[in-house]
């Protein structure tokens, strides 16, 4: 249905429909973010001998995040006197917009997708890189040394880890023979790429955590070192935007992992009666859980070690994976 709209002649109706769809997705995403944060806090709580939120919204604290967002909305909007005002205001938007844009190409099921474009994977990776600009801008515009350091760290980290991330999916692309995410999922009917591309998966998982700025790669906002890193001067809703961007990426990256390596909406053998959406949700939740688990378990890596690890370990491994995949494909799949 969306496909038809994409190819129909432009008009105000189309714009309206797309706007409504976009708003609907935003609502879905916000809903997800709300409960992803809650889930994260709950899971972390259980792993850390705590209860997590359990006051607002019943025993499970179901409305805790809603209350938090409300609080953020009501908070005074502070901009430091010596900050670069236009950039300071612009930065959260630059950071958030690409996070939302990448969601367009993700196929949640075989039918539920906004834009089935041929280079979906490339689009995702290209657009997601833009967020870095928002972070660096925010860090620079704050006119704060911690923020600057955080922004610089973010830039270095994003650039370094984008490369192994891309390289690790090349194996997938080779096997699937397409950059289209739908086709990648379809190509996994015979076997998920996590089995065919184990090395690629591991590299991708690590690089994606780094891309997400989550522990153990949360250097840009390393609270024990840089206080809060790039968003140290942000408060209220501007800060919420950074937070939102982070969790939307969390959502997007988990979805992408599911699509690329876990067979997207495809069911396990003999369990085909369960709808694809449920499968997707299950796999997606698993990835989310693993990322939270990482955060609870690992200490933070150091900046120079991060760079070293990215360039000296992940990249060569990813490159080797490409070669091996190419050879394997040449020998067995042609």
């Amino acid at each position: 249905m969306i496909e038809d709209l994409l190819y129909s002649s432009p008009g105000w109706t189309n714009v309206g429909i797309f706007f409504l769809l976009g708003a609907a997705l935003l609502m879905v995403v916000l809903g997800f973010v709300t409960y992803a944060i809650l889930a994260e806090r709950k899971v972390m709580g259980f792993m850390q001998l705590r209860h997590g939120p359990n006051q607002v919204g019943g025993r499970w604290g179901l409305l805790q995040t809603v209350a938090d967002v409300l609080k953020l909305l009501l908070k005074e909007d502070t901009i430091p006197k010596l900050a670069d005002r236009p950039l300071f205001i612009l930065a959260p938007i630059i950071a958030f917009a690409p996070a939302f844009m990448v969601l367009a190409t993700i196929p949640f099921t075989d039918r539920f997708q906004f834009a089935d474009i041929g280079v979906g994977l490339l689009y995702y990776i290209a657009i997601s890189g833009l967020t870095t600009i928002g972070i660096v801008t925010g860090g620079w515009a704050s006119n704060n040394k911690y923020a600057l350091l955080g922004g610089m760290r973010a830039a270095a980290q994003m650039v370094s880890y984008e490369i192994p991330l891309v390289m690790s999916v090349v194996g997938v692309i080779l096997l699937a023979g397409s950059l289209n995410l739908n086709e990648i999922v379809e190509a996994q009917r015979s076997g998920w790429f996590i089995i065919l591309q184990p090395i690629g998966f591991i590299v991708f998982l690590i690089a994606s955590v780094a891309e997400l700025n989550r522990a153990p790669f949360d250097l840009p906002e390393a609270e024990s070192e840089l206080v809060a890193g790039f968003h140290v001067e942000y408060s209220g809703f501007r800060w919420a935007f950074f937070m939102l961007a982070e969790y939307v990426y969390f959502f997007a990256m988990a979805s992408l992992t599911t699509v690329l390596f876990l067979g997207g909406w495809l069911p396990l053998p003999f369990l085909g009666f369960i709808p694809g959406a449920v499968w997707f949700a299950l796999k997606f939740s698993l990835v989310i859980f693993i990322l939270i688990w990482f955060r609870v378990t690992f200490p933070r890596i150091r900046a120079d070690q991060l760079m070293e690890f990215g360039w000296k370990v992940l990249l060569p491994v990813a490159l080797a994976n490409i070669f091996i995949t190419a050879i394997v494909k040449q020998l067995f799949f042609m």
Partner: protein
Amino acid sequence: MIRTEEMLLNVGPQHPSTHGVFRIVLKIDGEIIKEATPVIGYLHRGTEKIAEDLQYTQIIPYTDRMDYISAMTNNYVICHAVETMMGLEVPERAEYLRVMAMELNRVASHLVWWGTYLLDIGAVSPFLYAFREREMIVNMLNELSGARLTFNYMRVGGVKWDAPEGWIEKVAEFIPYMREQLKGYHQLVTGNEIFMNRVKGVGRYTKAEAINYSLSGPNLRCTGVKWDLRKNEPYSIYDRFDFDVPVSDGGDAWARYQVRMAEIEESLKILEQAVEQFPKEGAILAKVPKIIKAPKGEAFVRIESPRGEIGCYIASDGKKEPYRLKFRRPSFYNLQILPKLLKGENIANLIAILGAIDIVLGEVDG
């Protein structure tokens, strides 16, 4: 044209990882520290000055507030100094209570260190695990002294309160439990690759440097100096216990980590023996005069606190107040080496090095 310049970065006095109101002014080039200047004194309360107007017993609560993570050893050092001057013999039961309180506090202190150090390094969970066990210790000490942090438990000549019913059993139960948890700690953290990378070779100094900079406690033992006042200059009844002095020879944060973790086990060993030997009855306070007066003269005693060598100097003119009271505060001495260690390190290592020294700001500032 690219222009680079050095940046002045104020870390603290309000910063998550300076463990209080410690401030350090960094001259950084990118993230590399060119020069570090510690600034202290934000928590200076003039304990020593106040003490000049107080009777000895009244000073004890003030010592709680110096090294507030391990207040028992502070309590002990002042009592010990006065007892040494007076030549007081402390009843056996009191000695056992003191030793148990101090060792429990030592375990608690090292747990706090372990938790906060990993928090500094970016792992949140260990902090909460450590505080679970610490909570048990704090509760035990609470039962003993009526306070959770500022115990004010010891008195010149003994202790203030006897162990309540069932307290010894609680301590006895705690020991094997803590041992079990320690295993878990090691599984979670000790072998972790990221953690090892963060601490190995970080903040390294040699034995000679450690001695020259007057480091003490785990900061000294991590360079291979087998030196523990409990063992080498036994005070109280420490000569009755069979325990080891853990050392390591790396001289880096990793060695300090190992030493402290091993010290928890040694403290548990002492506790175990103390529980076994604990006299069933007896006085908990020696016969001391109502108003304690140290004889004219001066004394300097030193004991082993979790952070190192805590000392107490008393100059007395025979009155009920000390003429001059001076504490050798281990954190204050240990912190001196920091600017040297920081040169050329990056900011992430600043946190790892500072944390590994294990300072308590109340003690640094006195």
